[in-house]
């Protein structure tokens, strides 16, 4: 039996902290990936025990110097001045037009079709069955063949409960911790990976039932001012929902526990100042039992991408999975992960835990309380102007930067006839979707 005990260190420790430091650096000038690994096929195939359209993702590895995100400083996800969602990195280079199929040990064949570039879904729904082995076969559009080892479906586990508690974390920050209690039928398969999907309600703080409509843009050269009016909103923009998958890798080995029961395993900690918990929050905890191979793959992936302590790092190397080139020689980063999946959902409100506390700050550190009143360019409506007044209202509306809040009956210098707010404060669709998810319960 193998034991997987992770010695995790915070990155900064003891006294040496006063002197030691960890800081981001720009390594773009030092790295040149001429290793021939550029364009390596990356295969992420997760076949779960749920009866769904299973998904295989195919992509190609990027040169590291192309991926600006490696060298970027921490970019805020949301910005008040450019309310456009910033994508993480460049995104993968999709591998398109490949032929993907899964074979099981009973002779069944499941074909996959490409739904979006690089994303292949099974034509029919199917579930990984206990006691069955699965193999993945891929033929790329260039004709290269790849195959996986046969993987047996591991034994399923159960989630006994998912619950949240108000607590303090290691660093003394107050917030809400989400725990699970789980059981496994036997120690035959004791390796567990957790993932979650969190969905939360977003309420735009400065929402009003009205929005701007530009009647005419005018002609500043001819002295014709633009004309703007307010109309009722066309769509739901006050209450939205945002769903995000987990990105980290959470692994645990229950085999070392008696009765194969895991208690109070912390899945997630949300600090009091996390805007996601402002109103109503839901988390779907997914518990996967893994094969040894999958566990080892995820473990290495995690070890190579986290800093355990200042003094020593795990020696990284090539990440070998269970997908190989049929002709040999070519390297593949690939995992066929056949897992038993169980999940449980939890809902809670901010006020359940913090009845009297103020709400967490809004997303993106935007100050929604500060209202602006940009001039419209019409001397009749604007206040007194001077040389350097801010960007006029119509330009901002066209760029989607502002939302209507109120009339400004008495504009002062450089102000216009309306009070406005950054779009993010008035329209929740910037942050999420106004469609209520199927599973949502109030």
């Amino acid at each position, binding site marked *: *039996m*193998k*034991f*997987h005990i992770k010695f995790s260190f*915070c*990155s*900064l*420790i*003891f*006294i*040496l*902290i*006063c*002197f030691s430091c*960890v*800081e*981001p*650096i720009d*390594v773009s000038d*030092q*790295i040149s990936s001429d*290793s021939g690994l*550029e364009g*390596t096929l990356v295969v992420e195939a997760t076949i779960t025990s749920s009866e769904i359209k299973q998904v295989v*993702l195919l*992509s190609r*590895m*990027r040169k*590291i110097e192309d991926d600006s*995100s*490696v060298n970027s400083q921490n970019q805020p996800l949301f910005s008040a001045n450019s309310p456009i969602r910033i994508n993480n*990195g460049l*995104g993968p280079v999709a591998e398109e037009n490949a032929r993907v199929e899964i074979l099981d040990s009973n002779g069944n064949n499941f074909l996959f079709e490409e739904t979006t570039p690089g994303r292949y879904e099974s034509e029919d729904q199917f579930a990984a069955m206990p006691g069955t082995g699965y193999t993945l076969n891929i033929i790329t559009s260039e004709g290269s063949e790849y195959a996986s080892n046969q993987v047996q479906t591991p034994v399923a586990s159960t989630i006994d409960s998912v619950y949240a508690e108000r607590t303090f974390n*290691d660093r*003394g*920050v107050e917030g809400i911790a989400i725990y699970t209690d789980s059981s496994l039928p036997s120690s035959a398969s004791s390796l567990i990976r957790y993932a979650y999907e969190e969905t939360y309600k977003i309420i735009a703080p400065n929402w009003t039932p009205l929005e701007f409509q530009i009647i005419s843009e005018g002609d500043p050269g001819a002295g014709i001012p633009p004309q703007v009016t307010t109309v009722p909103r066309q769509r739901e923009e006050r209450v939205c929902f945002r769903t995000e*998958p*987990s*990105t980290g890798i959470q692994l645990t080995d229950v085999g*070392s*526990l008696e009765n194969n029961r895991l*208690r109070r395993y912390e899945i997630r900690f949300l600090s009091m100042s996390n805007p996601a918990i402002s109103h109503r929050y839901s988390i779907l905890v997914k518990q996967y039992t893994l094969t040894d191979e999958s566990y080892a793959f*995820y473990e290495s*992936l995690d070890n*190579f*991408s986290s*800093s355990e*302590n*200042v*003094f*020593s*790092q*795990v*020696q*990284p*190397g*090539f*990440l*070998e999975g269970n997908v190989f080139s049929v002709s040999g020689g070519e390297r593949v*980063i690939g995992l066929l992960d056949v897992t038993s999946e169980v999940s449980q959902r939890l809902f809670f409100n901010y006020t359940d835990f913090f009845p009297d506390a103020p709400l967490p700050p809004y997303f993106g550190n935007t100050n929604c309380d500060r209202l602006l009143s940009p001039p419209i360019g019409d001397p009749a409506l604007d206040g007194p102007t001077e040389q350097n007044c801010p960007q006029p209202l119509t330009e901002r509306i066209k760029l989607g930067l502002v939302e209507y809040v109120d009339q400004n009956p008495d504009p002062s210098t450089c102000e216009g006839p309306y009070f406005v707010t950054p779009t993010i404060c008035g329209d929740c669709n910037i942050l999420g979707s106004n469609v209520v998810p199927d599973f949502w319960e109030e």
Partner: protein
Amino acid sequence: MPTRFGSGVFLISRVSSSLIFCLFFFMVSNAQEPASLTVDLDDSTLLDVILELEKQSGYHFFFSETWIGDKKNTLTLYNVTLTEALDQALNETDLNYYILENEKRVILLQNAVIYDELPNNFFVQGDTLIPSAQLADTGYNRSPPVLLENSTDSSTRYSLVRIGKAEVGQFRSVFTLSGKATNVSTGKPVPDLLIRVQGSNKTTLTDQEGVYALELPPGYHVLLVSALGLEEMEREIILYNDGTLDLKMKEGLEELEEVVVEAKTLRTIENTDTGSEKIVLEESKNIPLVLGERDILQLAKALPGISSAGEGATGLNVRGGKTDQNLVLLDNAVIYNPTHFFGIFQALNPFTTESAEIYKASIPVEFGGRLSSVFDIQTLNGNTNEFEGEASIGPVTANLALQIPVVKEKSSLVVGGRGAYADWILRTLDDESLNNSEASFYDGIVKYHHKLNDNNEIQATAYLSKDDFSITQDSLYNYSNRLATLKWNHRYSENTAATLSLTYSGYRFGIDYDGEGNSDFDLNYDIDETSFVYKLFSQVGKSHRVDYGISTKFYSVNPGSIEPAGEESEVSPVVIEKEQAIEGALFIGDEFDLSDRLQLSVGLRYAFFAAAGPSTQRTYQEGSPTNEGTVADTLSFGSGDLYKTYGGPEVRLSVRYLLDEDFSVKAGFNNAFQFIHTLSNNTTVSPIDTWKLSDLNIKPQTGYQATLGIYKLFGDHRYELSLEGYYKRMDNVLDFKTGANLFLNENVETQVLQGRGKAYGVEFLLKKNTGRLNGWFGYTYSRSFYRFDSEFSEERINDGEYFPSNFDKPHDLSIIANYRLTRRFSFSGNFVYQTGRPVTYPVGTFRFNNADYVAFSDRNQFRIPDFYRLDLGVNIEGNHRKNKLAHSFWSISVYNVLGRNNPYSVFFVTENGEIKALQSSIFAVPIPSITYNIKF
């Protein structure tokens, strides 16, 4: 001076000790003389005999009564000549005689011989003494008369000593002066004392027992005697014949003014050893170090060929060897982790540590079991006469050491204790995340040393070090070393001595996990070894110095166990099966001179290892990789079964050729076996790395090294230069499969790779040992590569090609300098430059599981930026008044004065799905510190 004037006694005045004449010219023959003297004296002094002879022969005797002792003898002479009678009577004294036939006078002389002719080259040579080598060259084969000149040094505190008795007809050009050096206040022998003959290149060192021997031409010599911490001594001697001169050394008041002991210099030239260095801990006192801690291991890193992966990296890499290839011994017991705090501080108490002998090559035959080096660290023997103590307070640690005499002149106790109090600093910091961190360590040592008699000496040492640290709230880490040694030195005869030692060492670490769930546990690892070494030393004939003996060792390893902690824990206890083994060796080594210039040291050591049951071992299918899927069989071995043995001969060979008295060439070759390995999948050492014994599937590491070097002293021995090259090969060194799981793994062999290493380099070291400015300059060019090849891709690293090791730093330059302004103030500096170490950089990015990751390929293909650092310090000694109760010493230093942000590592993390390149550094800013030391 009491003198008698009567019965022909003539006063010979001793003018002054530094102005002596003893040259007489009498152009007289000592031809016929009257015969027939008969003396029959019982229990009489020499004076009685002389008076009797004076009476019978009618000759007048001239002598000083002070030359004649009170010793009583029996002398019976019948019908002899005066010459015969005097020969007999003065046989056992240091008196000579000269008979002035015409004047019927006999002149007695102390030591001297009166020559009745001038030496051949008397007028040519003037007052220059002829070195023996030159004598041999010119064919001059007669002892020159002893010519004295006025000493110009009026500060000499010792009177002139006459040694030996000249013999007529004794024309040897060289005599042997020998003796023993002892410390007046402690009575202990003084080893490594440098004895230099003024005006010549002759020098020697005392051995461990304080004994020295020096070959000198007869005549007047000035011996300059010096050692660190002792008052320098200047002795004038007149050498007439072989003789002894014991040196009583006083402790110096202005001790510790130099960084380097001069004594080492000669050793470097004359020994056959290559790649060995000796560090005396006091030397490191003036060298600025981080947080003011004196540290022998840090100092070692400033020497060529010794490095570590970076600041704050535990473990030393010696000449391209891995960190598990060093045998670190404290009083002969292995110390598995000689550091505290992730390698920032040494776990050795600087006050109780006497010295460290470091062997990078030419490892003495008594040591074995590691491929790369031996650090032989010795604790000092306590003062047997007076109570002594030393204490220091620094920013992180406090230290106190005492030397307590137990039986005067015979035995003493050394007690040392050191503790860190870093917690309060952590708590006062503003960072909340550190409020729950703690880090503390301590170490303690007790040594008892007892000299039973001249032939027997025993010593016992007990040592404990412990570290505790917690980084997250829920885990507490701890590790500890414990050692005990018992040693008996015994001299069987003049030529044979033996050392018997029994040692125990243990290393353990644990993790106490106290989290929120039901998975709280206590995890433990420990390794214990008990060893027995019996070593003999024999001087065989004049030129053979033979070391031989036997050593055995018993290992017992608990490779890991986990137990539930607390009532709510549901962790099921697991204990990985114990490992046991016996390691032994028979060794013999001989050091001998083939000629005056050529010395050879030959050693042979037969190393033996047996893995012992009870044990369960797997075998794997031939021709397939070692993994879970290729298990062929599982074998069970009962208690005491020696289920796998390894062994072989180890050769230790070195040769020295003296090109000149201060210039030598040396070469060496040695091979070694290593049966114990560390398991670590980190790029640097961590305290939770485990040690694993060789077994059915893990073969011992083997290696060999060849060295060649030249060594030169110049500038009146003030400068020492060495240039040494080496080539090293290692086989079956351990590495690990990517992402290996090593701890609590019953079948570690499935994660282990064994491969080959090679290293080569050139080391240049220039030392200035004396003077106001002293220190050293070292430069090393070295490379080290490893290769893990196999027919199976999972057992290959970098496609089976050689790749640079984590500590491959081709250029390494160190300067250590110390400038003494006055006796009380000195400045010191320390500069290091190293090529950045290799790291594994990613070669691409990919998305997996909703997050971006980097992919790695070939190991160590990139390097982090070069490392350089300057440290400066000022040392202020308290005043040197002799009777002051205590002697204090301030040390103020700034580590990393330039504030260079030396990267320790560059790594890539995925946080919130995004990749970030991060650089860590350990000491990124200048760190000032003040340490106060007091000696009493």
